[in-house]
């Protein structure tokens, strides 16, 4: 036992010297390749995040040195009755509402379209995919301008075609519906391409075997298609959820947060606080952004744990 221990220790010591070199060598070799990304990620990712974290504990109007405020920004956000408490929780509720409806929409609709387009012998599938993908390449602002005209209550295409008198942008639930339509229109393409790619990788023998066993299309979809593409599904769910929590452009352009701030989402007020028409409240804005980040992180961790468990 003692001999073994001595031998292990000697190997370990000898190995330690060697390991340092060996460990450095691959890093030095890899560094030039990863350096551009690493530097960009550090400059535009890590440093701003760390700085933002620090700012959230301060009062800062973007000039001079931030004044340390400890947890005061968070206290104001969490104290019922304060303006910042009202803003944060109202906006968070609106953001959650958007996430809860928009994420399933942006997962299910592209998935069903992908299954349809992957049907054997279907002609023009590539063309349809391209048509559905193009809105994702158009800026939200430009898309929203067109959709605002479509939904205009006086001369919009929908009201004039169907002889309706709906105030789409100025009343609920229509205001939210216009935002979901824009988000879905812009968001279908990205997930659709991922699902089509995943579906084309599913072993066709599985489908043939299921058909031989008498399984119908619904059973095949739930028992073969979904389990086979679960990894891309998890990936798109996480990415779509993160994107939905960061919603800003759609409500800003379509309804500007109205009516009565019912579509005002968190990022809109974070931006308004950081860059208002007066002195900035960057510390408070950072505190709200940090809380949003924590919520996002918790949700992402849950999703990843769930994904690994399933895997």
């Amino acid at each position, binding site marked *: 036992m003692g001999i073994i221990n001595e031998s292990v220790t000697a190997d370990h010591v000898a190995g330690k010297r060697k390991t340092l070199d060996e460990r450095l060598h691959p890093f030095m070799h890899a560094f030039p390749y990863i350096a551009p990304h690493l530097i960009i990620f550090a400059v535009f990712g890590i440093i701003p995040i760390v700085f933002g974290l620090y700012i959230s504990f301060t009062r800062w109007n973007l000039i001079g040195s931030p004044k340390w405020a400890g947890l005061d920004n968070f206290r104001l956000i969490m104290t019922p009755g304060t303006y910042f408490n009202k803003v944060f929780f109202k906006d968070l509720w609106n953001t959650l509402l958007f996430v809860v409806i928009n994420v399933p929409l942006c997962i299910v609709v592209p998935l069903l379209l992908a299954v349809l387009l992957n049907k054997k012998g279907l002609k023009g599938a590539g063309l349809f995919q391209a048509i559905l993908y193009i809105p994702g390449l158009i800026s939200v602002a430009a898309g929203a301008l067109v959709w605002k005209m479509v939904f205009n209550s006086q001369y919009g295409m929908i009201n004039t075609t169907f002889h309706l008198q709906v*105030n789409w942008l100025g009343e609920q639930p229509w205001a939210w519906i216009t935002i979901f339509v824009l988000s879905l229109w812009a968001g279908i393409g990205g997930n659709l391409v991922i699902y089509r790619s995943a579906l084309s990788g599913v072993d066709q023998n599985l489908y043939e075997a299921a058909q031989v066993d008498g399984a119908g299309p619904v059973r095949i979809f739930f028992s073969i298609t979904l389990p086979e593409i679960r990894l891309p599904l998890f990936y798109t769910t996480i990415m779509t959820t993160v994107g939905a929590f960061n919603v800003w452009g759609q409500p800003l352009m379509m309804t500007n947060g109205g009516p009565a701030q019912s579509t005002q989402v968190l990022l809109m007020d974070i931006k308004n606080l950081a860059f*208002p028409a*007066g002195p900035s409240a960057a510390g408070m804005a950072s505190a709200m952004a940090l809380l949003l980040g924590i919520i996002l992180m918790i949700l992402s961790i849950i999703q990843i744990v769930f994904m690994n468990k399933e895997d």
Partner: protein
Amino acid sequence: MALVNMRKIWKLAAAAAAGALVLSMSACGTADDKTLHFWNSMTGNDGVAMQQIVKDYNATNPEYKVVFQPMQGGDVTTKLYSVEQTGKNIPDLVIQDNFQTGVLQDQKLLSPIKDLQKYQPSLSKDNYLPTSWDAVEFGGEAYGIPLYLYQMVLYYNKDLVKKYNLDYILDDDVVTIDEINGLKGKLPKDVYALSLGNLPWVAMSLVYNQGGTLDKAVHDMKGDVWRKPLEQLVEANKNGLLNPIDMDVLQTFASGKAVFGLLGTFDVGTLEEAMDKDKIGVTNTLQYSADNPTNFFWQANWIQLKDPSRSEAREKASADFIEYVRTHFMTMAKIGQVSASNVDLDSPEYQKLPQSYFTTGDKERAMLRSSNYMYGGYATSAWGTFNDIVYGNVTVDDGLQLLQDQTQGQIQIQEQSE
């Protein structure tokens, strides 16, 4: 072999990094490159006009050429803070509005204008509209130079006024909300009395019209100076006298669907393209009361951030350019901007322009108001809430409470930051 490759890779990486560094350094322009950097948020028609003035100025072969750098409004402020923090690449010339001028002055970031007046004495109070100069002074010291004024003013469709016999409303050049409400039942269903745009800007005039001032009114958003006109506008909306909220304000007026249109002074060019010039009348902005009528104007100011490294030659060149613009402003005036300089205000050519209405004669000049109160912008940024109140999405009480919470919350944070 592997070692040789590694060295090559590292050399390449080092060369690329050095190249990037050199490029970025050259972009910074550390040496005096004989150019003046002019930051502004003129991204519309105003940008096209100002760019023409810059081009004309550069064609005179000045020692320092001007580089016109337009960007989105908020981006100018953010970038100003960034360069102020680093102390590098501080622009020589900047345009900011009256409220932002107040914010930057309060933060002690601005150079006094006397630094420019040394080289161009004509950049002084005597040569500008007094109200506009008052708005760049803080404690008797000027920290900005007025460039132009702008606001929502009341246009009217001459044909519709005649058709519906509404001359009596315009007899005193003052249109009150009460008079708008008096049009209930006098207009056909598809013609609105008022196409209402940019309400918070109009609200400034309504506050001053009732004897209020922004520095006090911002701290009491539930006060009568805000409440009374909003209650009347709510009534106007209930009476079907206002355009629906999602109808384009300019289009509604230009297409003859509204008798009056609250549009910007800067909209005159677009209006004249959209409808017969002779059909457009212009008068003072909407008032609450016919007593003490006021036109609250925003203004764009020249400002200079403090920069210890700015040379005297550069300072002189900046003053020269500002003076050139002051004496060559007609290009901008033609797109609807109200000139702040006496050169234009006294010129027959300028007096033919519609916006000269607001600065011609002592009576009109006495109606002008402006403010550089640093928190003034907070009250004007809540466009959605003002509209929610008028269009009935929230009650007047709830809407004003929201405005009060919002402005006071932001002011409270600022006061705790000091």
